[in-house]
């Protein structure tokens, strides 16, 4: 009895989340996809290191941190561009995107240097 009630609740929760997500604007969905791509790449790299060992540790760190840094920058872009966010109401989205591009440039410069 209780178990079926919990699964019913889980199903109801899942459906409500899905329908709410469908209402998000398209640009935010694109950013979410990008973040998903970065995190998946990071997970693949960590699994590879667990198998093979951490021999060129600097390369491993460089690869993982490039994924994590990309994800972090994309998340900050998403926060600044989201219209529902009261804190960044006055920030033009072009300014947010310009910051995003500059920070990515610095990130990739550092990553290539540390890759070895």
């Amino acid at each position, binding site marked *: 009895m209780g178990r079926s009630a919990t699964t019913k609740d889980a199903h109801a929760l899942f459906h409500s989340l899905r329908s709410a997500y469908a209402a998000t604007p398209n640009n935010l969905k694109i*950013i979410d996809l990008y973040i998903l791509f970065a995190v998946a790449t990071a997970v693949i790299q960590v699994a590879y290191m667990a198998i093979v060992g951490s021999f*060129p540790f600097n*390369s*491993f760190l460089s*690869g993982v941190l490039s*994924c994590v840094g990309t994800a972090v920058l994309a998340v900050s872009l998403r926060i600044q561009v989201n219209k529902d966010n009261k804190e960044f109401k006055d920030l033009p989205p072009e300014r947010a995107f310009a910051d995003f591009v500059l920070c*990515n440039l610095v990130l990739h410069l550092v990553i290539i240097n540390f890759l070895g």
Partner: protein
Amino acid sequence: MAAPKFAFLLLNLISILPLLVSSFSVDRPTDRRILVLLDDLSLKSSHSLFFSSLKSRGFDLDFKLADDPAIAVKRYGQYMYDGLILLSPSTERFGGSLDVEGVLDFVDSGHDLIVAADANASDLIRNIAAECGVDFDEDPSAVVVDHSSYAVSETEGDHTLIAADDFIQSDVILGNKKIEAPVLFKGIGHSLNPANSMVLKALSASPSSYSTNPSSKLSSQPPSLYGTAISLVSVVQARNAARIMISGSLDMFSNRLFRAGVQKSGSLNKYEKSGNEQFITELSKWIFHERGHLKAVNLRHNKVGESEEPSMYRINDDLEFSVEIFEWSGSSWVPHVSKDVQVQFYMMSPYVLKTLSTNGKGLYHTSFKVPDVYGVFQFKVEYQKLGYTSLSLSKQIPVRPFKHNEYERFITTAFPYYGASFSMMAGFFIFSGVYLYNK
């Protein structure tokens, strides 16, 4: 007026001449000048065969009575002799400036010594022997007696004249011709400390021998020296290549025993001539460095393919090592051939230990790979073989790790990380395009 001055000058020049005579030197290790101390000048004639064999091999013998006040081995800080023969077992004190300290300094500076003791050996001789690692029997009246290995003789029946044939197994020390006849020995025995690695028994007593006073009854306690622990003749090779021979019998060197026939009790073989002359002659050749003296020259190492010696190696380099070893044949240096010379590449412990291969002409070489450890290493050759002078060579060389640009450029195991980083960059470009031009 000028003539006396000229004569004076000439006399001065002549007195310097003895010091210019050639002698022991690194290039010619055989000794030249030998001081012989006797306690009785009749030994010159009763042991003449021994002395004439030395003279015929080119040695300059200087005979002196042991208590001659003019004895001096050192003058103005330089040694005047290369070897010392002490055939004076009953002398209590040497004349002149020589004493136990003087004899030991003589040996410590690399010179050779032959000491013969006897049944009435004095404390002086016993002390010299003790300092060289040989302990004579403490009982001053004890001699070596052997009731089953004595020399059969018509006159002496107390079995103190022993026929010994337990020689050390070494072609370097005793020559390559086997000594057929036993050696006649009459005197005192000594023992060696088993912990001493530099002293060897050249002639041992048989298991049935023991050291006792032949004219008194045996005490209830067993004798302190017996069996094969008794050494009749011992040799010592010091680390500075000085060689010492200590014999418990002065009669062993005498003409009488050189010429005597010998028959060991219990055996039917009768030999016309005892083995004494061959044994003593061959042993004296070894003692005075006519045999078994090695020198190592030209220790070289270089990287494979180069000919110059580098000042530093890198880990995982291939290198070649070579050394030349020569042996003194009595008159010239000949190549020494051996299969067991080894080289170590050593830093606190040998990382590489290789046996060197020889080309038969004295050149020993090998090649190996520098280990994967960096630090300051040494090439070490430690060669110690029975009867030969020991070689102890070392050469220091540092080994460095890889330089920054000597690693492989792209590491294969890191390719996924390279791929991930570049895919992130590509993703960034694509995302920017899609985001900006999205309607």
